[in-house]
């Protein structure tokens, strides 16, 4: 493992993407990739090459080809040295046999052609009870193909292998569907229940669609629960996860959570050890339709915030405007003073360079907790250092 970690993996990129590496090799590959900027750059290049090559269409041979070929074949047959013994053997019986062969082959061909092409699928293991794929109960193992649903009841659980990049435990009373699996995207849909994911892949290869947001993996472990009303709760235990909707995005590090609501999208990321009052106020800021209630709640969030809650304040700051933006800036600056060269005026207009500079100081405060369960701490630290676009996303989070 150490050897693999130190050795660059560029020559294995295509094999990794095509599932030609063993499970252990894939894991080691991903661990190296997370920590190695050079290999990651190459990975992005090869991934694009694969995406492009997948667009290569299979062409149809022109219809005239057989009619042109047939006379040439006849010519070759007559000039062939050896006569066919096939027709020498009781011709009528042979002809009948050929007809039968062609007919049966034809029927089989039509039967096979009428069936959907073989779809990629993931291995599913039964953990408890009797989980179902479609309407079929699985005994010990099963396969979940694209478009198929996996369902657990109150006494059943299952584990899914996410191609070669990780696995997902599906808890009781859950319903998930495999939407996509290909080298550059693996996607599940969770419409009900709870799942725990452990992914050892480069960022943004694994996604989970829920009714109110999409969870995008950044090399991590997390649980995601979808409630009956379509809202969801994300808890990240290692690495980072982005919760995304059309208009909102929250970047959630280890030790933090994020709630989502249908029609609204993701709320703001918060640390799970924040006070109940802070969390209650944040829920109002995120989801209460009443402007006055949100104003009061924001004041409460600012009152209750600890230095560690700069994660939440940063998200709110990036979504705010007017006086709220100023209040949030002042609170953030009171916890973590901006570095030299970063001014209040510049930050209030989201100056790109200043935003990056301040984020460089803030971000390490958000990554010091909860990591290291799935990947070695050294790897995780390296990942956080190189960030691979994460800072950009934190910097560019769309205003509300």
């Amino acid at each position, binding site marked *: 493992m150490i050897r693999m970690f130190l050795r660059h993996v560029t020559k294995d990129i295509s094999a990794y993407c095509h599932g030609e590496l063993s499970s252990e090799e894939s894991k080691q590959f991903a661990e190296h990739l997370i920590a190695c900027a050079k290999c990651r750059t190459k990975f992005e290049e090869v991934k694009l090459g694969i995406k492009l090559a997948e667009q290569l269409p299979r062409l149809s*041979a022109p219809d005239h080809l057989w009619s042109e070929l047939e006379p040439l074949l006849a010519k070759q047959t007559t000039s*062939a040295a050896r006569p066919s013994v096939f*027709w020498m053997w009781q011709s009528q019986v042979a002809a009948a046999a050929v007809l039968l062969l062609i007919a049966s082959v034809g029927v089989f061909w039509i039967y096979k052609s009428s069936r959907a092409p073989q779809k990629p699928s993931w291995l599913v293991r039964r953990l408890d009870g009797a989980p179902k794929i479609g309407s079929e109960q699985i005994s010990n193992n099963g396969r979940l193909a694209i478009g198929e649903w996996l369902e657990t009841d109150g006494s059943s659980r299952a584990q899914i292998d996410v191609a070669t990049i990780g696995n997902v435990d599906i808890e009781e009373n859950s319903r998930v569907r495999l939407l996509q699996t290909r080298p550059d995207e693996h996607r599940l849909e969770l419409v009900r229940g709870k799942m725990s994911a452990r992914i050892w892949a480069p960022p943004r290869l694994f996604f989970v669609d829920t009714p109110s947001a999409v969870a995008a993996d950044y090399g991590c472990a997390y649980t995601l629960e979808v409630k009956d009303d379509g809202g969801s709760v994300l808890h990240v235990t290692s690495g980072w996860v982005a919760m995304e909707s059309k208009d909102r995005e929250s970047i959630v590090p280890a030790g933090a959570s994020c709630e989502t609501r249908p029609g609204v999208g993701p709320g703001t990321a918060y640390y799970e050890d924040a006070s109940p009052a802070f969390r209650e106020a944040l829920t109002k800021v995120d989801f209460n339709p009443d402007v006055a209630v949100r104003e009061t709640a924001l004041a409460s969030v600012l009152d209750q915030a600890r230095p560690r809650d700069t994660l939440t304040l940063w998200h709110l700051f990036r979504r705010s405007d007017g006086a709220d933006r100023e209040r949030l800036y002042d609170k953030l600056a009171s916890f973590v003073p901006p570095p030299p060269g970063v001014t209040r005026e510049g930050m209030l207009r989201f100056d790109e360079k200043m935003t990056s500079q301040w984020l460089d100081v803030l971000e390490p405060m958000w990554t010091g907790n909860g990591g290291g369960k799935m990947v070695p701490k050294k790897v995780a630290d390296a990942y956080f250092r190189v960030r691979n676009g994460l800072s950009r996303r934190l910097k560019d989070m769309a205003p509300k």
Partner: protein
Amino acid sequence: MVMAEQLIDGRVIEACQQGDRDAFQLLFETYKDKVFSIAVYSSDGDRTIADDITQQIFLKLFTAIRQFRGDSEFTTWLYRLVVNACLDERRRRRRLLPWGEMVAMKKPGERKPQEKQYARLEIAEAVQAAIGELKPKFRLPILLKYIEGLSYDEIASVMGCSKGTVASRLNRGHSQLAKRLSHLNNPEVWGD
């Protein structure tokens, strides 16, 4: 190697070996699109040349199939025939055509402005053109992977090289495609 190809079993091949025209037509129908596709991509998109290559491959197959002993998978044997025919044709054309004409053939179609939103079809056209610019040793593994759906082991068997060489050539082929078509690395282009 599923679906219709599963129909090509020992009985069909034996019938072909004994000169059964219907069995041979079944073989032709099963593989014609795949063989033709590789021929097109190997002849820089020239369908007339691809027609000729495809015909030559099936003519050769019809005679050579008598020598097929089943030591390897039939498909491996067939694709070896296809790869060799494509390489032979390329060598022949290289001898016949002046260098400038070869280069000109490698650039079919008109270049489209980068600002334009590419539809999937346009992406496919751009990929086809870029595939034509790859050296055969990088192009053929890509065709066997994406057109024929072969595994690395199967490609290695067809090309007579190691699995590691296949992985390496695919890697370099993918990289070269990405570099040549880097302007397509834009979510708006793909409609993502």
